[in-house]
Structure formats: structure tokens, C-alpha cells
């Protein structure tokens, strides 16, 4: 009883500290962005002519669209590839190939983002540049982000699929289901919650990824007209300008941070909804 109480107390403090840190970060962002938020209407961040913070133009929408487009593009590529990789490991590969391939993906997941950025900058960008100048572009950003979130989607999907109880497959086999029927009808629905959780983690990582995207995306504040146009993401915007920003400019950068945070919160809200709907 005594140790139980101790443990509960310990866990409670731990949980409270984590929640508190989260709240403090939010509070910090709000406080730091307050100088701008209190003077300007929120609408200014949407309707201003452009992002020229020194001249008092604070439109964040081009960067929001850059962030969303890069993340969405990366997810569109990484989700099918990642799930296919996981299915390959669990159901279709011979066991030695499967374990080798899984190791490879784990290794892939451990590569620091700046290395991806470096590779993108020195190899990918010139390659795209030869084809469709300037090279530093939405496409380069999407490609680098895809490589970064792909192992995340693959590993979480793998974990979820590997956790599907063996009996389900025996039952499915006994009903004369084909391998593919089993995968589509039983394994994927059974692993659905885990797979979606992985996708949401990957989405959060893609939205917040800074360095790699900054290095390859060109960082021009604009709405891209094609995938070959440069873009600037919200995260890159903060990293690029933080060093010299002062006053309202600095506060406006914290608004970018708040916006990013809001995006991630929307994502986790969606995750909650998915959780509720699962098993049907």
C-alpha cells in the first residue's frame, strides 16, 4: 500500500510536470507574440500584402501554405510507400530479407535531418535545377521530407501489423481467404489505429521539420505556382529570421510558432476523433 501510494504520487507529479511544461511553452509563445497580437487584429496575418515585417506587413499565409503543401506532399508519398514496406516485411518477404529490410529502415529513421538536408542541397537541388531551374523548390522539400517521414510511417505500421494476433490469420486462412484478402480484410483494419497514429506522428514531424527543408526549399515567401517554385515554411521562417529579429518582427515570428503549434493541435484532435471511430 505504502509503495503503491508512493508510485501513484510519483506518476502524478511526472504527469503534471509534462503537462505544465506544455502549458508553459504555450504561455511563453503567447507572451512573446503578445506585442503584435494585442496591437493588430488577427486578420492582418491573413490579408496583409506580404511578409515584410520591417514594413509592418505580416501575412503568414504563403508560409502556412508552404508548410502545408510540403507536409501534405511528403505524406502522400510516404504513407503508401511506408505501409507497403511494412506489409512487405510482415507478410510477403522471406524472413531473412524481412529482418534485413527492417534493420535498414530503422537505420534510415536514425539519420539526422541535417544530413538529409545536406544531401538534398548538394545532390537533389542541382539535379532538379538541371531539369527545372532553380532547383531549390517545393519538390526538393517534399522529397527530403518524404525520406524523413517514410521510415516513421513504415516502422509504426510494421509494429501495428506485427501486433495483430496470430489467431486472426489462422481464422482468416481457415475461411479460405487469400493472402491479399487477409491483409486487406483483416490485418489492415486490425492495425488501423496504430497505423493512423504513426501517420499523425509523421505529419507532426513533417510540419515542424526545419533544417532539412530550409536547406533545399529556396525560402522565397510566395504561393508556389508549380512544384518547381521555391517555398518558405513557417518553421524555416523562424529559423531564418530569429537571429536578427527585434520588436514587432520578433513577436510576429512567435505568431508563426503559435500557428505551427495550432496545426499540431488540430492534428492531435483529429487523432482523437479517429480513435473514437475505430473498430467499425
Amino acid at each position, binding site marked *: 500500500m505504502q509503495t503503491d501510494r508512493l508510485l501513484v504520487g510519483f506518476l502524478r507529479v511526472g504527469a503534471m510536470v509534462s503537462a505544465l511544461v506544455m502549458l508553459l511553452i504555450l504561455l511563453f509563445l503567447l507572451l512573446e507574440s503578445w506585442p503584435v497580437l494585442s496591437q493588430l487584429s488577427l486578420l492582418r496575418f491573413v490579408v496583409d500584402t506580404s511578409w515584410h515585417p520591417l514594413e509592418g506587413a505580416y501575412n503568414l499565409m504563403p508560409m502556412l501554405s508552404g508548410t502545408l503543401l510540403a507536409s501534405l506532399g511528403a505524406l502522400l508519398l510516404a504513407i503508401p510507400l511506408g505501409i507497403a514496406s511494412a506489409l512487405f516485411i510482415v507478410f510477403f518477404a522471406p524472413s531473412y530479407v524481412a529482418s534485413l529490410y527492417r534493420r535498414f529502415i530503422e537505420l534510415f529513421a536514425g539519420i539526422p535531418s541535417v544530413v538529409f538536408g545536406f544531401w538534398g542541397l548538394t545532390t537533389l537541388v542541382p539535379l532538379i535545377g538541371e531539369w527545372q531551374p532553380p532547383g531549390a523548390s517545393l519538390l526538393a522539400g517534399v522529397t527530403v521530407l518524404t525520406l524523413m517521414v517514410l521510415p516513421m510511417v513504415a516502422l509504426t505500421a510494421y509494429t501495428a501489423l506485427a501486433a495483430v494476433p496470430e489467431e486472426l490469420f489462422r481464422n482468416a486462412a481457415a*475461411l479460405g481467404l487469400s493472402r491479399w484478402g487477409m491483409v486487406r480484410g483483416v490485418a489492415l483494419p*486490425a492495425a488501423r489505429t496504430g497505423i493512423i497514429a504513426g501517420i499523425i506522428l509523421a505529419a507532426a514531424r513533417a510540419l515542424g521539420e526545419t533544417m532539412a527543408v530550409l536547406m533545399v526549399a529556396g525560402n522565397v515567401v510566395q504561393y508556389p505556382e508549380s512544384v518547381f517554385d521555391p517555398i518558405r515554411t513557417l518553421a524555416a521562417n523562424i529559423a531564418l529570421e530569429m537571429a536578427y529579429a527585434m520588436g514587432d518582427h520578433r513577436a510576429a515570428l512567435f505568431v508563426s510558432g503559435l500557428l505551427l503549434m495550432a496545426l499540431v493541435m488540430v492534428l492531435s484532435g483529429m487523432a482523437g476523433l479517429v480513435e473514437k471511430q475505430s473498430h467499425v
Partner: protein
Amino acid sequence: MNTNRDAFTLGPLESGPACCVPQPIIQVKNLSLRYGDKIALDNVTLDVFKGCITALIGPSGCGKTSFLSAINRLTDLIPGCSINGRILINGQDIHAANNNVQALRRNIGMVFQKPTPFPLSVRRNLSLPLNEHGVIKKSEVAAIIEQVLQDVGLWGEVCDRLDTPALSLSGGQQQRLCIARALALNPEILLMDEPCSALDPIASGVVEDLINRLQGRYTIVIVTHNLAQARRIANYAAFFWVRERTGQLIEFGRCQHIFESPNHELTAAFVNGHRG
């Protein structure tokens, strides 16, 4: 088809229910089954009669479940498992090169010890195997679903919540859903591996009644550790025993014969509770 009917000892002719025809639908000939080097079943020869309930009894590890899984070739999924001997179903060798495993398994339903509905809705549990086997038309699928749920006595309990998760049903309901799922494919044969052992006594009784009602319409092979149950429901019983870690068929015959006047002293000792 009736060539090998006298290859084993049948008890004196007790009168069985009319729905049970002494005509073999499954013929197992000199079946040996190994897992790697370990011989799980040695030289089993046995005929299962059409429309009858055949109970497989014996101590744990005597190869009953292996025997069952060999019939629908579920043993194919176990790495290192090899089979010698022949299994004929309606005269067709199930290992013949032109035999389609999926079609075979469609014709042979299987119910496992632990109720294992798929983590899908009640309706999807039943429609998934139907869709997979080419029954796509919605009205047809719905009709079959209602029919099989009626058959297992679940329709009244779940007809207004077909779209709720199957895992929210009670254990006994889940097991009956699994039986319904097997019946939906309209098989000739039902293999049951201790279908009641994970259920509470009341749910177990319900499932047992259900198995009784299925007799005649389906040929049922059931593994059970509950001797009283075997005695209550089965027409035929096969007694397996394990010798030097190898499963063997000791005796096969009419259920009444196996339980009341077995030929083999091991059988007598087992059914009377002295051994096993």
C-alpha cells in the same frame, strides 16, 4: 467411394439418427504428421461419415488438433510441418496438384478454441469471407447473414446492432458468430477445436445445443476434452493416445461403443477416468 469402409473396427450396430449416413466424406489413409523431427501423428487411418458428428478424444498432446488442421490443410501454414499419407474428401485427394486450397477451405469451416471474431463489425465479419469468395451482391449477402445468424440463434440478439464491433459481444456470442462465419460459406464439413472450452457453462451449453442442431446438415469433426460432452453429442468417437511423444489412433467406432464397451483397455481406462 465406399472402398475402405471396413478398414477399422466399428462397434455393434446401435441405431443412430437418420440424418447420419454411414458413407465416408473424409477418408484419412495412413496419415503421419511431423513437426521437424518430431512425429506428432503416426499412421492414422480413419473415415468420417457424412452428416455425423465425430468426436476426437484423448489426452493433451496426442495430435487431435494436428489431425484436425491437416484436414483443411491449415498445417501448410506451420513452418517445418510435413505430412505423409492421403486425405480424401469426397474422393478427391486434398494434396493433389490441381486442388485449390482456398476452395478446399471454403468447403471446410473451422471453429477454434478461443472465439476469434475479426476486429470489425458483426456484419463485416460475415460479409468479408463472402466477398472474398465472390458473393458480392448486397441483397444476397444480407440474406445469407440473416440466415446464418438465425441458424446460430444470434439474430434476435444482434439484429439491431449489426454494425457494432464484434468484439463488444459476449464470449459465447462471439463463438456463435465465429460458427456463423464458417457457416456463411455453406461448407459441407465443420471442424471444431474445443469450441466450448473457453466459454462459461451456460454459453457452453448454448453452443453445444447449436452443434447438436447442426448435425445432419453438416459433417462435424469436433475435438473435445469434455468426455461428457463428447458422449452427449457425438455419433462416432475416435480415441487418440500418446506413446513416446507420438500421437496414435487407438480406437474408432460408434460413440456408444467407445464409451460403453471399448475394445481396447486404454480406451476403457481413459473414458472411465483412470488414465489421461
